[in-house]
């Protein structure tokens, strides 16, 4: 048993599940947006705006935002533990990633919910 406090959840299985589930949400969203754009070739601003005003779309987008945060944290954490061997630089890299994700999520919530 290897213990690591900077991983996302405490267990490898949990991290692995979250990675899979967030990937699923991200691909569904991508397919949806591409499909929407293809089905509406002459998309107007009002239409696009109305789509993002709808509550279900806001919830969907919020889920995507959180999934991006989770997915990239688990991924970048793995990469940092593979390639950055010195503790100081690794911790620095992880802190920068964590901070960036926090900022993106707060900012994204403001944008999506029009706060």
């Amino acid at each position: 048993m290897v213990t690591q406090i900077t991983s996302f959840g405490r267990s490898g299985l949990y991290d692995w599940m979250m990675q899979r589930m967030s990937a699923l949400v991200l691909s569904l969203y991508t397919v949806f947006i591409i499909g929407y754009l293809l089905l509406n070739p002459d998309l107007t601003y009002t239409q696009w705006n109305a789509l993002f005003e709808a509550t279900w779309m806001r919830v969907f987008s919020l889920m995507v935002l959180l999934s991006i945060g989770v997915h990239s944290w688990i991924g970048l954490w793995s990469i940092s533990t593979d390639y950055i061997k010195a503790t100081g630089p690794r911790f620095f890299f992880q802190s920068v990633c964590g901070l960036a994700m926090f900022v993106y999520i707060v900012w994204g919530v403001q944008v999506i919910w029009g706060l």
Partner: protein
Amino acid sequence: MLVSIYRYNPEKDDAPYMQDYQIELPEGKDLMVLDVLNLLKAQDPSISYRRSCREGVCGSDGMNMSGKNGLACITPVSEALKNGKLILRPLPGLPVVRDLVIDMGQFYKQYEKIRPYLINDAPAPAIERLQSPEEREKLDGLYECILCACCSTACPSFWWNPDKFVGPSGLLQAYRFLADSRDTATQERLSGLDDPFSVFRCHGIMNCVNVCPKGLNPTKAIGNIRTMLLQRAT
């Protein structure tokens, strides 16, 4: 034929280097790489490598032949040649003791960690613990591993974290005991593996399957462990 061998003697050399040897091979015969090494050792007795059984059962002579890990004793020269040249290096990722001899300490440590022996709390029966043919069949493709380390030293995840990631060889053995009907420590074993490194550092690159000289499939065993962990948690 040109043979290029990785040479390093820490008592004499500051750094490893590649040494070229020219060798005449008998016509019409496809020798094994180990035979070529033996011929070369007659020329230059300072070349060091491990070998014992010379028939693919002891796992001593794992090495990197023209870029691919394998057992020198059962790899024909014709298969290991690259542009008419045979390049021999030690297995990658573990410390070199001398020439083609590596220090397998880290590899064995991971093997030890998975407790590679039957654990059973029930009092031992008079003769033996029986298995049905079906139960025994579950161990096929697992018990045959000869611990040659060709797989683990071909695995990038093991290169980067040899102290934390158990590696394909160790995980194949972990599953061998998880799958054994006579073992009663399944839950304990699974608990010991459920961290972000031991099993989950495997990214399914399948380098291990590609090199195993016994044709075993560690990636599949790792998938089975993951399924067991998932079934336990949901």
